[in-house]
């Protein structure tokens, strides 16, 4: 793989991770959001795959395949099941309207770029130059968690946040050791299970996972 092709592929894959996080804010149907997150997982795996191929690190290639399977298939699959299991309305309910959320996310992207400028200035590898994308994805994941009402969407936000962190790691360290990625993946998996169990409990008990109604639980 020559340098130009590497830069292009890397930028496109990393860009896709960012664009999918915008798409997750834009879409209204829960199922569609879950699918977009799956695409994001695959794009993330593609980033690791491209870096692994370019730097001839077989371990990273292996990690990328695992990441693809886990974040592209398994976790979104779990979420999709959770969405389908719920008999509540399958539409996103948000605290702010869609254009406002999109503009806020653009603002977050700019902030991410401005904040990582000094780091980027230290090194000029294409990986590091794409680093702000990862930070932006993290911020947008948090935005998703903050502004959405359904617990399922919060789970998706957590996953997106985690995708962002993984992207930063892939780009910033040129390859995460297999053990670290395994550890994180199992953590996320565990968290997902717990959240899913919790949401299904809540749903069984109260018939919905609207967070505003969860406030009633505090006493």
């Amino acid at each position, binding site marked *: 793989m020559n340098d*130009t092709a590497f830069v*292009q592929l890397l*930028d*496109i894959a*990393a*860009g896709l991770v*960012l*664009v999918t996080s*915008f798409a997750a804010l*834009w879409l209204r149907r829960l199922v569609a959001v879950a699918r977009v997150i799956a695409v994001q997982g695959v794009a993330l795996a593609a980033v690791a795959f491209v870096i692994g191929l370019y730097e001839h690190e077989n371990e990273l290639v292996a990690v990328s395949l695992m990441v693809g399977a886990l974040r592209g298939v398994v976790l979104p699959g779990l979420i999709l099941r959770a969405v389908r299991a719920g008999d509540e309305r399958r539409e996103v309910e948000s605290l702010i309207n*869609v*254009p406002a959320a*999109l*503009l806020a*996310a*653009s603002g977050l*992207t*700019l902030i991410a*770029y401005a904040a990582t400028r000094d780091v*980027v200035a230290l090194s000029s590898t294409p990986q590091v*130059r*794409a680093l*702000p994308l990862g930070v932006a994805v993290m911020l947008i994941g948090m935005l998703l968690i903050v502004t959405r009402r359904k617990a399922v969407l919060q789970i998706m936000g957590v996953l997106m946040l985690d995708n962002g962190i993984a992207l930063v790691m892939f780009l910033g360290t040129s390859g995460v050791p297999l053990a670290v990625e395994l550890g994180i993946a199992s953590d996320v998996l565990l968290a997902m299970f717990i959240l899913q169990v919790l949401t299904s409990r809540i749903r069984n008990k109260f018939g919905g996972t609207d967070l505003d109604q969860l406030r009633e639980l505090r006493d």
Partner: protein
Amino acid sequence: MSATGIAVAMLQVVLTIAAAPLLVGMMRLVRARLEGRVGAPIRQPWRDLRKLLRKERMVSANTGWVFSIAPLVLLASAALVAGIVPFLSTRSALDQVGDLFAVVYLLLLGTVFLSLAGLDAGTAFGGMGASREMTIAAIAEPTVLVAIFALSVSTGSSNLGAIVAATLAHPSTAASPESLLAFAALAVVTIAETGRIPVDNPATHLELTMIHEAMILEYSGPDLAMVELAAHLRLVVFLGLLANLFVPWGIATTVQPLHLAAAAAAVAIKLVALAATIAAIEVFIAKVRLFRVPELLAASFVLAFLAVTASFFLA
């Protein structure tokens, strides 16, 4: 401004005008075939235009000079843009006359005149169409200009010829994130500005859902022919911009007749491919509610905005 440059520009204008109704006919044909119909022949829009030129012109008592000159201004602005946009050659004489910003504002000039004509008709639907058209034009504007910003950051100029030349010189930039994002953003705007599904339905008969059609309800005969031709031209201009700004290969950098002919063939292939894709997609999706259109345009704005940030920071 050389004589050959002027000749190239004139050639572009004439060819674009000749091709525009055919392209629209082709889109209708694609749609018909996907719906299981035979469909009208590709030259049908030309037949319709020829017939309209031979019909009576009706001018209602409410209207004034704006109603009469609006089709002329609309058509003239679209035709002028057809001369500026590099369809055949980067050596069009009009290339230095106006850049991409000028193109955008010239197209807006046509929109403004058509909206004024809609208001001048004095009917409820004319005003409604005008109001909606200006709403969409206004909120599409940031997307367009920010996308241009992204293009001119990576190429160093907002002149169409320069952008095309830069992409030809560095083919890899065509697949960079910024140009992909800018392409997506401009594609959404193209659909909004040319009144295609899901923003507007060009074949609707229900006045309450109309945008473009509502403004021209009052036009008849030759005036209607001009408005329709201008609408076809604008479609071609937008699609041609999309095609040649992002995939410029095949365009002539000289003014030799042979190269120009090859360029015409290349741009025709690109236009047909783009138009057929749009027509096919239209079969699959429904028109969105008018008040969801801002969401669509906000999304396209975000794409354009990401294109700029990408070109600033990844470059």
